[in-house]
């Protein structure tokens, strides 16, 4: 080691490592799960206080204080997760900030325990199984060793399937649920892991500084984590150490600004969010050319057992009602669908067609009535569980992530690692007529008709028993519509049940075995296409009362 670094420089580098840990955690909850948590600073401070208290008051050693410092913030995160994680983003930010402020108030006011505003001094250095780790190079190596270990763990956990699953969750939460991704569990895992990383960083921070005060859990620490994530890059593990190193040294480089150093700090954050929103690591990743994974050969997964037509209805809807405010979107609708049947659902705009699909998918819960899938109630189940029990769906506008390849979009629905999922995804893409070239393309570059097919392939990749299609033919060319019709008939022939909402009457009437017509939330006709076409109530609903 011939690096000429003084104790002060070594300490700065060590502190940067202590910050890189909470930032690695913050990347999970903010960068990947997309939730603006404002409690990361408090979790960091809690870790610092846990170490300081246990070491100074009770004389615990590092091997006991360090896990405890991780557990304390994780326990708080777990405690508040239930009320907090389901909140929408602006309330989530408020709730996490409120938690942080309560922790700060406790640290300042619970003087007997925390030493109040003065904090706690005399925290010992790290003693690792009897071997002291002094400040300087040894402590730096310990901290950065841990940073590298967490970076590696984070990279291994997220590369492939989960970073893409989070991307879908951020961009299209409903589509994520519709392929069986459990948003609650994903967000919980990210939140708890972020608290664990913050606690570890706080513990090492207090071992480095040897004192702790309420400043360790104040809002400025939170802002530092946020700024390091944004500036370094919130979605690449490299962003955490880059952001931490940069922002810990920034005040040193801006020493000439004297009192205005913090202003420079804010300005750097502002400049980053405006000019380089994906951060330094994001810019680096874009600069390095990356080949898309070549599309593998299609490989059909084992076919699932499909119920036969004589086993009773696949989908049975009974007395279904749903109101939004004072508007009755659905009012006592009863329907059933056999395996292998294509049931068309028509009705004027606002008649409740999409509401019906959303109730079956579990995006909304009914006010009254029952929905059964092969005899089992599903109306109280969360959407991801409904999807896993065999209900696939598409949306009026394809709900895909533009930057993701078609192959990966479909692979996500297979619920396994990408390497194993991709050949199977190719099978479903082939089924809708998408070849290797288009499969490797980013979804955003595909024409609209192909996007619709990618979404359909994604729904098929769930190997559902029931498929809900919301206007699958809209925006398609005549040729594409014909191909779609043939595909849907073939799927029904395999025993799949299809519920198809469609405005294109010639398409639907030529396709469906039976057609149901909704008007103002009520079922006004149900029968063969020919019967429904002639039904006076249907004609009246479409042409107005006079008819």
């Amino acid at each position, binding site marked *: 080691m011939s690096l000429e670094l003084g104790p002060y420089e070594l300490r700065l580098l060590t502190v940067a490592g202590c910050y890189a840990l909470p930032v690695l955690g913050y990347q999970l909850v903010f960068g990947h799960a997309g939730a603006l948590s404002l409690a990361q600073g408090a979790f960091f401070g809690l870790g610092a206080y846990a170490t300081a208290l246990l070491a100074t008051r009770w004389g615990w050693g590092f091997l006991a204080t360090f896990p405890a410092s991780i557990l304390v913030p994780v326990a708080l995160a777990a405690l508040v997760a239930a009320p907090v994680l389901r909140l929408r983003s602006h309330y989530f930010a408020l709730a996490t900030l409120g938690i942080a402020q309560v922790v700060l108030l406790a640290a300042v006011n619970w003087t007997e325990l925390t030493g109040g505003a003065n904090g706690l001094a005399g925290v010992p250095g790290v003693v690792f199984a009897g071997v002291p780790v002094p400040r300087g190079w040894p402590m730096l190596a310990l901290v950065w060793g841990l940073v590298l270990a967490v970076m590696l763990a984070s990279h291994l956990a997220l590369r492939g399937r989960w970073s893409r699953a989070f991307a879908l969750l951020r961009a299209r939460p409903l589509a994520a649920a519709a392929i069986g991704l459990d948003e609650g569990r994903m967000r919980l895992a990210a939140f708890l892991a972020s608290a664990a990383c913050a606690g570890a960083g706080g513990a090492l921070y207090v071992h480095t500084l040897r004192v702790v005060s309420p400043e360790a859990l104040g*809002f400025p620490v939170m802002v530092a984590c946020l700024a390091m994530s944004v500036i370094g890059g919130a979605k690449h593990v490299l962003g955490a150490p880059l952001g931490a190193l940069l922002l810990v040294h920034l005040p040193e480089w801006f020493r000439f600004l004297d009192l205005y150093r913090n202003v420079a700090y804010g300005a750097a954050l502002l400049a980053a969010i405006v000019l380089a929103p994906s951060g330094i690591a994001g810019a680096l990743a874009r600069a390095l050319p990356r080949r898309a994974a070549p599309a593998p050969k299609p490989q059909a997964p084992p076919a699932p057992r499909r119920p036969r037509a004589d086993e009773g209805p696949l989908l049975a809807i009974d007395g279904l009602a749903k109101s939004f405010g004072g508007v009755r979107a659905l009012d006592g609708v009863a329907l059933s669908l056999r395996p292998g049947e294509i049931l068309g659902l028509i009705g004027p705009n606002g008649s409740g067609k999409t509401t019906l699909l959303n109730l079956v998918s579990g995006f909304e819960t009914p006010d009254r009535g029952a929905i059964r899938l092969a005899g089992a109630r599903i109306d109280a189940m969360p959407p991801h569980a409904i999807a896993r029990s065999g209900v696939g769906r598409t949306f009026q506008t394809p709900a895909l992530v533009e930057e993701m390849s078609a192959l990966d979009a479909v692979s996500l629905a297979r619920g396994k690692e990408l390497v194993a999922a991709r050949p199977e995804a190719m099978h479903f893409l082939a089924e809708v007529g998408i070849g290797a070239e288009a499969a490797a393309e980013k979804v955003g570059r595909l024409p609209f008709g192909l996007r619709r097919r990618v979404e359909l392939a994604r729904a098929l990749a769930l190997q559902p028993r029931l498929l809900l299609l919301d206007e699958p033919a809209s925006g398609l060319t005549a040729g594409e519509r014909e191909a779609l019709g043939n595909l849907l008939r073939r799927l029904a022939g395999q025993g799949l049940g299809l519920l198809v909402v469609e405005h294109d009457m010639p398409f639907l009437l030529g396709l469906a075995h039976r057609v149901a017509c909704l008007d103002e939330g009520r079922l006004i006709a149900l029968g063969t296409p020919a019967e429904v076409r002639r039904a006076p109530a249907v004609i009246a609903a479409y042409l107005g009362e006079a008819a």
Partner: protein
Amino acid sequence: MTTLLLQLLLNALALGAAYALIALGFVLVLNATSAVNFAQGDMVMAGGYVAIALAAVLPLPGIALLPVVAVLMAALGALLSLLAYFPLIGRPPVAVFISTIALGVMLEGSANAIFGAEPRAAPALVGAGAIELAGIHLPYQRLAIVALASLLILLQHLLFAKTQLGRRLRAVAQDREMARALGIAAAPLIAGTFALGTGLAGAAGLLLANEWFVTPTEGTNYILKAYIAVTIGGWGSVPGAVVGALLVALFEVGVSSALSYSVATALLYAAVLAILFFRPQGIFGEAAQARA
């Protein structure tokens, strides 16, 4: 006992009236842009310091400084929109949340560099003294806070309800695309809304900074109060923001007098968490649609 209660009520009313200005500014910007302006709390702090700086040059009572402070702060608000809102149009709303946090950090850093960390007091609105009414002690300062804040809220209401400008502002807040189709230039109106919201925050800063002092770091405290007020009052509801602010102040003054300020603040956050637990959409639901 009754005397004490009435006294506390006046305290709560004075504090609540100032909080209402902050929350009002917050919700006006929220409605016009769908974005959370996190710098709103730091604008209150900045308003307090602008008043202190002005008073050093113009030794006038606070009530005379108020219009000047409001106008200067409004200019700062327009600047904020240029730096932290307009460059981020079309990006996820969380980007504005972060950019306004950044601006708040810059404001706090500047205040700390110029004025130092010690608490400072702005001039009183009309001078010391109090009215004694049936044994109740009514300080001029608090009465003036209530009167001036009410006047500003009334003016804001008249601006939005009765003037052509107000109708345009509301049109932009309701549906920016439609407003544009009707030939209303949205950008100046949005900048104007930021100016108005910040002017209100600055006025609140002057009103608060005499009795409750001002320090560089208290922006976080004020943004939390405004945020909570808007959450309680119904996300996006203008009258709700005022009612929510009064409730927050009532809670704070009431619990502080019985226990302590720190306990009151902690309980307030706990209460908000409880509210969000049972009503994730806020007490009165959302007037504005899912964003931030």
